[in-house]
């Protein structure tokens, strides 16, 4: 049996690594199962993977679940400010009743999770350092994620929507003052060449995105028990690796920016609380109004210690 796994990353990106890892471990298990990895959007475009996955045209993917937030508004909770404090906390969320609820929703789309995982991100700015809501007032920013845009707009920032490929030239020419995205993207887009101040993900951070490895549920169930075991064993191993590499990725980003001479600012727990208060009046109510059982899901997520 051959399964096709599509994702948007390449080379040394941790999300490519876990895909390769699972593929190798499954092959080594010798259960007549091969996973063919299509990286760098060579099969489906980054944002167009969830639909073919849920329709069984694609077997597996690694993707930010919030990309499918337009289909299942509940997924917007996987890129929501204030829900996750650090990667360890994200790991506890991944194995909480909250995530079980999300997995029920995924099951309705014929999708199931193989590898859980959050990745963190930060802020980069050319107009001072961004650590608390006051810092973004009047700043032209491109944010990754709908809920972040709503929160930042609430703090008085002006939100610019543009393709991720245009962030670099936009920062270079001054169309944008600041941006907010994952540590991995900050490095791979080489934004340290254009930014003056970087707020990395550390012990406290605001930006976390759930980026699991998913499989089509019917496809998974049609595998033999041996194949299923090989796949879940490989996935468990990859999940532990994913968590450790995620932390390293944040360190790499911090180091890369520091080496490039970019000023580094850190977010304090007090700053985090200010953002959370802001989110409670901006992104949270919008989420609740748009999502069936939104309040219940939000409360479940906030309840995870």
């Amino acid at each position, binding site marked *: 049996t051959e399964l096709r796994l599509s994702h948007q990353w390449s080379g040394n990106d941790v999300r490519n690594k876990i895909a390769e890892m699972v593929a190798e471990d499954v092959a080594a298990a010798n259960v007549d199962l091969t996973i063919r990895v*299509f990286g760098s959007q060579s099969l489906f475009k980054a944002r167009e993977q969830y639909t073919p996955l849920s329709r069984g045209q694609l077997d597996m993917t690694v993707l930010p679940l919030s990309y499918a937030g337009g289909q299942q508004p509940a997924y917007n909770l996987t890129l929501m400010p204030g829900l996750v404090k650090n990667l360890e906390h994200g790991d506890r969320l991944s194995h909480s009743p909250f995530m079980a609820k999300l997995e029920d929703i995924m099951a309705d789309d014929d999708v199931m999770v193989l590898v859980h995982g959050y990745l963190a991100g930060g802020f980069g700015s050319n107009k001072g350092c961004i650590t608390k809501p006051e810092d973004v007032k009047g700043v032209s920013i491109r944010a990754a994620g709908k809920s972040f845009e709503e929160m930042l707009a609430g703090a008085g920032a002006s939100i610019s929507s*543009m393709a991720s490929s245009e962030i670099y030239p936009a920062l270079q020419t001054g*169309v944008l003052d600041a941006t907010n995205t994952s540590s991995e993207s900050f490095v791979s*887009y080489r934004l340290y060449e254009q930014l003056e101040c970087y707020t990395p993900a550390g012990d406290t951070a605001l930006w976390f995105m759930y980026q699991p490895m998913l499989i089509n549920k019917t496809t998974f169930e049609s595998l033999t028990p041996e194949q299923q075991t090989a796949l879940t064993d490989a996935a468990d191993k990859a999940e532990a690796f994913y968590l450790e590499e995620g932390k390293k990725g944040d360190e790499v980003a911090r180091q890369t920016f520091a080496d490039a001479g970019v000023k580094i600012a850190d977010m304090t727990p007090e700053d985090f609380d200010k953002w959370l208060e802001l989110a409670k009046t901006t992104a949270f109510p919008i989420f609740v109004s748009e999502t069936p059982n939104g309040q219940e899901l939000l409360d479940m997520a906030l309840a995870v210690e």
Partner: protein
Amino acid sequence: MDPLTLALLVGIITIVVLFSGISVASGLLIVATGFLLVFDGVRSLASLPDLFFAELNSFALLSIPMFIIMGASIASTRAGADLYEALERWLTRVPGGLVISNLGACALFAAMSGSSPATCAAIGKMGIPEMRKRGYPDGVAAGSIAAGGTLGILIPPSVTMIVYGIATESSIGRLFLAGVFPGIMLVALFMAWSIYATWRSGDARVLSSTNYTWKQKFEILPKVLPFLAIILGVLYAMYGGIATPSETAAVGALLCIVIAVLIYRLWHPRDLWVILRDSTRESVMILFIIAAAGVFSYMLSSLFITQSIAEWIGTLDVNRWVLMAMINVFLLVAGFFLPPVAVILMAAPILLPIITVAGFDPIWFAVILTINMEIGLISPPVGLNLYVINGIAPDISLKTILLGSLPYVACMVLAIVLLCLFPGIATWLPDQVMGQGL
């Protein structure tokens, strides 16, 4: 079936289908559908419309209709005629003066546009009819613009360089700078050939028979002001922090429409409709090809054809320059069939490790790759610039455009050779500005 055998089969069938005279876009869709149906089963057909949609689901594509509108609105006014009148008065003693100013205009436009078909459309819209009117051979008129237009993806800004930078995690700023001198070198090579070809055809003497006084030369200059205003406006929008590269195209389009209406009094709705109609026809034609090529490249990737070819190259144990030559052939062939962005997205992540292991600089390689993609843009069956030219001047046959472009392809091959001999042409500027990299 072995992917390499499959690759051969796809190649042959694609050529046969496209040579039936079917439109390129429909042909690519049909071949893609057929192979997916046979080798991937019915379930893959359901993805086709989504893939088609996904390929168009990109803000960067906006620049194509926008730069076509720019060219179309300028072409429907006196601006083009004024510009060429001015250029002729100033370049009258240079054989092939007009073709040289056209190539210069292409290079200038390329510095405003990130896309090659857009550059080709904008300059060709004015340039080709003027050159033909003034006695330039059809082949030179069409070929120079087709080739000059390809500079859009070499001279910064460049959409494909951005895509390469993201796919390979290389510095986009460095990549942009790396394209500057190779771009200038290519322009010089194109100009040298154009001068020779025009001189050989004998028409140059007719062109240079009139002599203009300095008074005549200077009194025409104010008429060029609207054109300069557009160029400066677009450059300011792009580099002055007004807009991103894709958005700049819209500024340019609006600027051109406004100038056409206010300065050239083109306010009759019928005149405006002609601009819009022509732009729409060309834009839809090009966007249809891009979307279809996206589906086609999905098929190639899905059947593991692209990857297998690249991997096969990687496994060969040969001298690094033989390897580079083979990679060039692969890119060239891929470029024949696929639009640059698709080739880069599929090949760069696979080729990059091979390149770095063999000791080549990835920034330098981006320039080599881009010039290969430029050749692909003016070679059949999927040569977007050829079809842009065909749209602008339908009475010049594709054969004439092709034959006219061939010498310029030779210039590009020469440029690749020169870059292999003197990699500094690409790497010197980025090293100067941004320090020694990697």
